[in-house]
C-alpha cells in the first residue's frame, strides 16, 4: 500500500476520538457537545475504514456509511431538542441543566 500503514490511521482515529470525548467532557454549550460527538463518531469511522482497508473487505466502509446516517439522525434530534429548549427559554448550557439531580 502506498503511504502510511494502517497503524498511523488508527492513531489519528484514536486521537480524534479522544478530542471528541474531551469536547463532550469539558464544553458546556450543547451545540459544541453535539459537534464533539460528531468528531467521536468520525474517529470511529476512520478506524472502521482503516481496518476495512487492512482487511481488504468493504464491510467496514458500509459500516461507516451507516454510521454517517446515524450521526445525521442524532444531529437532527439533538438540534431539535436544542431548538425546543431555546423556545422554552432554557439556558443553552449543559451545566445549568441540573433540575434533575441527587
Amino acid at each position, binding site marked *: 500500500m502506498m503511504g502510511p500503514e494502517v497503524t498511523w490511521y488508527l492513531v489519528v482515529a484514536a486521537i480524534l476520538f479522544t478530542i471528541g470525548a474531551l469536547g463532550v467532557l*469539558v464544553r458546556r454549550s450543547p451545540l459544541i457537545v453535539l459537534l464533539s460527538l460528531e468528531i467521536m463518531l468520525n474517529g470511529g469511522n476512520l478506524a472502521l475504514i482503516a481496518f476495512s482497508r487492512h482487511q481488504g473487505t468493504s464491510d467496514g466502509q458500509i459500516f461507516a456509511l451507516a454510521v454517517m446516517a446515524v450521526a445525521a439522525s442524532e444531529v437532527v434530534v439533538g438540534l431539535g431538542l436544542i431548538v425546543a429548549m431555546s423556545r422554552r427559554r432554557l439556558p443553552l448550557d449543559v*451545566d445549568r*441543566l441540573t433540575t434533575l*439531580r441527587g
Partner: protein
Amino acid sequence: MTAVATTAWICLLSPLTAALLIALAGNRITRRGAGYLATTSTFVSFGAAVVGFLSMLGEHPEERAEVTTAWTWLKAGNFEAGLSLLVDPLSMLMMLIVSGVGSLIVMYSIGYMDGEDEERRYFAYMAFFVFSMLLLVESANLVLLLAGWGLVGLASYLLIGFHHERPSAVAAAKKAFVMNAIGDATMALAIFLLFWQTGTVTFDGVFGSVDGLSDTVVTLAALGLLGGAIAKSAQIPLQTWLPDAMEGPTPVSALIHAATMVTAGVYLLVRLNPIYEAADFVQHLAAAIGAVTLIVAGLIALVQNDIKRVIAYSTMSQIGYMFLGAGIGAYGSAMFHLMTHAFFKALLFLAAGIVIHALLGEQDIRNMGGLRDALPRTYWAMLVGGLALAGIFPLSGFWSKDSILASALAGGTYDRILFVVGLVGVFLTALYTFRMLFLAFGGERSAYAREHLHDTSHGEAPFSMGAAVAVLSVLSVVGGWLQVAGVWHPFSDWLEPVAAPLVEPSTTQDWVTSLVSLTIALAGIWLAWLIWSKRSVVVPELPEARRVLEHKFYFDELYDRLFYRPADAIARALRRDVEEPIVTGSINATVTSVREAGRASTLVQTGFLRSYALALMAGLAVLAVLFVALR
C-alpha cells in the same frame, strides 16, 4: 384397681374437683356455698383416707405398698414419669394428717373468713392446696413429687398474698415463692442427676439402684433434694420467708405454714431415706441444720410481738426437731412429731385466729393482755396447745419430742451433741410459748383490747371455728398416746416397711430423756411466769443481742445484699450497657451509617451531564486497563 388405690385417687381428686368447681362457678355459687363445698370435699378426702387406711390395715405389712398409675404424665426417650400414686404406710399417714387437719381447718375457715369479700377465691385456693399437698405425699416418683412440691408452693403463694391490696402481703407471697423456687431448682437438679445415673425417677427404681451409685453422685443428689426440703420447711438458710408468710389469713398459717406444707421437708427426708442413708454426710447435715434452726428460731421467737410470728418461729423450731430426728435416722419419731405437731400447732394457730378475729385483726401481743376472761375457751385451747408444744406430760408433744431426743441420746457422739442442743431448744420453747400466753391472756387488758374486743356474748366464735378448735384440742392431748416409749409403738411399726429407724433408744434412755426434758420444760415455764406474769425478774437489756434477734440474725438483709441487689444491679447494668447501646444500638448505628453512605453516594449524582459522561469514560478506562493488564 384395688380399694386402697381407689381411695387414694378419691382422696386426691376430691379437693381438686371442689377447687375447679368453685373457680368455674364464679358468682353462681354463694360465698358460704363455696366454703361448704370445699369443706365437704376435704372431708370426703379424709373419709377416703380413713377407708384406705382401714383396708390397708387388713393387709400384711410387707404388702401395704401399692403403685397405681393413671397415665404416663411425661415421657421422652427413655425418660418416663407416670401420673402414679404410691400408697404405702408413709403416704397413708400423710394423707390422713393432711386431709384430716386440712378438713378441720377448712371448716374453721367458714367461720373465720365470713364477711371477706373474696371468700370464694379463698376456698378454691384452700381446696387446691389440699389437693397439691396430697399429690405431694401420694406421688410415686420424683417428678410428680416435684410437681406437688411446686403446687403447694403455688398455693402457699396464693394464700399468703390473699389480701392482695396489702403490699406487705404481696411481698411476702413473692418471697415465699421465690425461695421455694430455689429449693425446687436444686431438687430438679438432683432429679436430673439421679435420672442419668439410675435411668428412672420412680422411688422404687431409684432406691433399687442407689447402692450402685458413687458417693459423689449420691451426696450431690441428696444435697439437691435437701435444698428443696430446707426451702419448703423453712430451715436455715432458706428460712426467711416463713415469718413473712404470716401475712396470710390465720387458717392458712395453720394449715400450710404449720401443720402440713412446711413439714413436707421432713416427709421428703423420710421418704427418701435410702438415698440419705447412702449419703450419710448429707443426713448428718440435715440433722445439724435442724439443730441450728431449732435454736435460732427459738431465740428469735423470744423477741417477736406478733402472735402469729411467735407461733411461726416455733414452727421452724419444731421442724428443726423433725429434721434432727430424720437426720439421725429416727424416722418414726420424726413422723410422729410431725403428726402431733400438726395437731397442736394447728390448734395454736386456730386459737390465735380466734383471738385475732375477736380483736378485729390485731396481732400484736402487746395490744392484748387479760383475754382469759373474755375468751375462756380459747384460752384453754391455747393452753393445751402451748403445753403440748412445750412437751409437758402427758400431752402429745411430750411423747413425740422425747422420742426424737431419746433417739439422739442413743446415737454416737455427734448425735449426743444434737441431744444437748435439743434440750436447750426445749427450754427455749417453753419460754417463748409461755411468754406469748402470759402476755396475751394474762395480766391487764391493754387499751387496745379494751377498746376493740368485740362483743363475745353470743359465743367466742362461730360453730365451725369452735368445733375445729375443740377437735384439735382433743387430738393435741391424746395424739401422743399412739406411742409410749418402750411400752408400745404401733406408729413406728406402721412405718417400719417404708423407713426402718437407724437408732432404737433403750427404755432407760427414753426414761432419762423424758425426765430431763420435762424438767427443763417446766423450768422454762417457770421462768416465763416469773418474767412475764409475776414480773419479778427483769430481762437483762442486752440491746445488741436484742437487735440481732429482732433483725432475725440479719438473714433478710444479707440476702438482699447478696442476691437481690446484685441481680437488680446486673439487670440495670445489662439494660444500660448491653441492651441499649449494643443490641439495639447496633441496629440503629447500622441503619444510620448505611443511610449516610446512601446520602454520600447521591452526592456524585450532581446533575452535571458532563460528569455522567466522565463516569462512563473513567469506567471504560479502568476496564480497559484491567483487561490489558490482566490478559
